[in-house]
């Protein structure tokens, strides 16, 4: 069942543009530019899907708020996301981001790191400025939510990096999900939706509201993201097969290891045990071919659909009682968009 949603791209554009415009106000426009503030502005201005910010604004609006109420938080999310991308790219040794060279490739690791840290600090500012529009209590509540999310993201990142560092590949799907829950879902989906809900309801949400929905949506998103990295036709952000170069523990890689013969496992472990720069084109090509051979791509695709199904179920539980609106429909259609996009 494929429904090509037009609403989702429409809203992504609308809220994305709104966020991008507001975001500029928070990028410091003073010296040092060449070594700091220009770099800081790079990723945020390069664009991206603006999915996170849109989720936040849409949820807020679906629950009755005005888009501008959620704008500060949306900006903060995108800034923080960009900041983490800078660090991710360095840690992963990635070379491409959003169609252009990564920040550290262009400017070197020290300046890029510095810019990333600065961007993290810059992302705090909108949350503090929030208090004017939303009131101190709600602003504080959002800060608390941000804290929780940042913590969990770091934990998830640590998990994944730990696996790479220890060259651990004998993982199962549950391990992957636990990691994705913390590393991706909180920042990408759970937190934006919850923050939006806090704004929309003036801090009257249940302690665990939207976490399940956010989890399944985020997991779907991430699995699909990983798939696209291997099969996308045109460059959609990172370089093709970049994940294989990095040794990222995706569902496909885990499945590959699980299904491989012992000798193949050894080879896989050997490849992944080396530094990225020591891996060869042949290594990567071999891994990719093996994935086809063992049906890992298909497996992950099915998995993503399963997660999407669960997400839809959770959506109906979470948003069932809310009155219909364009924003609410956007949230529902996000689920399919996330798994169908290419």
């Amino acid at each position, binding site marked *: 069942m494929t429904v090509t949603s037009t609403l989702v791209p429409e809203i992504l554009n609308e809220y994305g543009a709104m966020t991008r415009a507001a975001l500029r106000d928070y990028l410091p426009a003073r010296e040092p530019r060449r070594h700091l503030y220009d770099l800081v502005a790079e990723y945020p201005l390069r664009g991206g899907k603006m999915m996170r910010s849109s989720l936040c604004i849409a949820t807020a609006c679906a629950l009755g708020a005005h888009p501008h109420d959620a704008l500060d938080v949306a900006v903060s999310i995108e800034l923080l996301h960009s900041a983490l991308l800078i660090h991710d790219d360095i*840690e992963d040794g990635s070379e491409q981001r959003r169609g252009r060279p990564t920040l550290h490739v262009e400017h070197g690791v020290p300046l890029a790191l510095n810019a990333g840290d600065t961007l993290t600090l810059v992302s705090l500012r909108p949350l503090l400025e929030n208090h004017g529009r939303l009131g101190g209590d709600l602003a504080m509540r959002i800060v608390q939510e941000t804290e929780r999310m940042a913590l969990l993201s770091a934990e998830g990142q640590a998990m994944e990096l730990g696996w790479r560092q220890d060259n651990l590949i004998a993982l199962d799907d549950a391990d992957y999900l636990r990691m994705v829950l913390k590393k991706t879902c909180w920042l990408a989906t759970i937190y934006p939706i919850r923050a939006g809900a806090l704004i929309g309801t003036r801090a009257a949400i249940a302690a665990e509201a939207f976490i399940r929905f956010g989890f399944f949506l985020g997991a779907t998103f991430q699995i699909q993201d990983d798939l696209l990295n291997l099969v996308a036709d045109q460059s959609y952000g990172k370089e093709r097969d970049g994940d294989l170069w990095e040794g990222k523990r995706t569902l496909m890689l885990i499945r590959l290891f699980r299904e491989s013969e012992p000798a193949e496992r050894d080879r896989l472990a050997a490849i992944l045990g080396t530094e990225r720069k020591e891996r060869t084109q042949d290594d990567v090509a071999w891994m990719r071919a093996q994935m086809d051979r063992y049906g890992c791509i298909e497996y992950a695709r099915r998995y993503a659909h399963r997660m999407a199904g669960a997400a839809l179920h959770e959506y109906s539980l979470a948003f069932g009682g809310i009155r219909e609106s364009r924003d609410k429909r956007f949230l529902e259609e996000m689920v399919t968009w996330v798994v169908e996009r290419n």
Partner: protein
Amino acid sequence: MSDRPRVRRKEPERTAPIRDWSNMFRGPGAQDAAARSTDSDAAGLHVNNLTADGVANGSAAISASTAQTGLVNEEARAGIEAAYRIIEEHLQEGRLAAEAQRGRGGGAGPTAFATAGGPGVGIAADSIQEMVAQGIRFYSSLAPLWASLVNSIASAAVMRDSAADGISAPPIASAPMPRRSATTTSFAPVVIEIASTRMTRVTVDLPPHVQNLTIGGLLALEPEKPPLREISLTIEPGSNRPLVRIRVPESQPPGAYSGVIVDGESGEPRGTLTLRIEA
């Protein structure tokens, strides 16, 4: 000697204290053990109900997802159930942590805020508004400092080492701390020549062993104040010391002006210079 067998000590479960506080959702064994033992009935029931909910959700989700994919099979069912187990686990962890924070009296733990939504013991400001307003003031007033600080961290190596564990992997305990790293108290001798009719004060941060340096203009925080452009940085002939020459025009408004000292070749920042003109 007695006939009965010698009494021996039991093997202890551990012989060292737990010093690792990094996993903040789980305290030392006691937290879980005590929490479970004293609340075991309530907690156990609670957990079971939730698991039941989770399972109920899971089954419904399976139906939803099978509708989605058309696949009814073991793989699908196992996948969904695993996923639900994971999210329920996660939620339970969050509940335990929140409960633990409440039990602590809300003040001792750093995540005190994560629960009730109120400030923990010891928060400085009288009100949240105050704190947030202070935050803006702090951020803004430190902005020029921020820029200069960011550049005067002792060395790129320090930045790499310390920044790498900022928000990614936890710090590796055995990584040597940079004992050699220069603190802000280590300066290279610098000669400064200022031409000004008013009292000025200059602060310079420069690590030792510098050559081939340049500095652009000095800028004030307030945009209406023009930058100080008449500034040069050379090496004093004969002594190898950096020589800074600044001319402050008569009309230059009083205030603080800062700039970054840059390696002429690589473009990397090396230090900062701040000039304060007294009114």
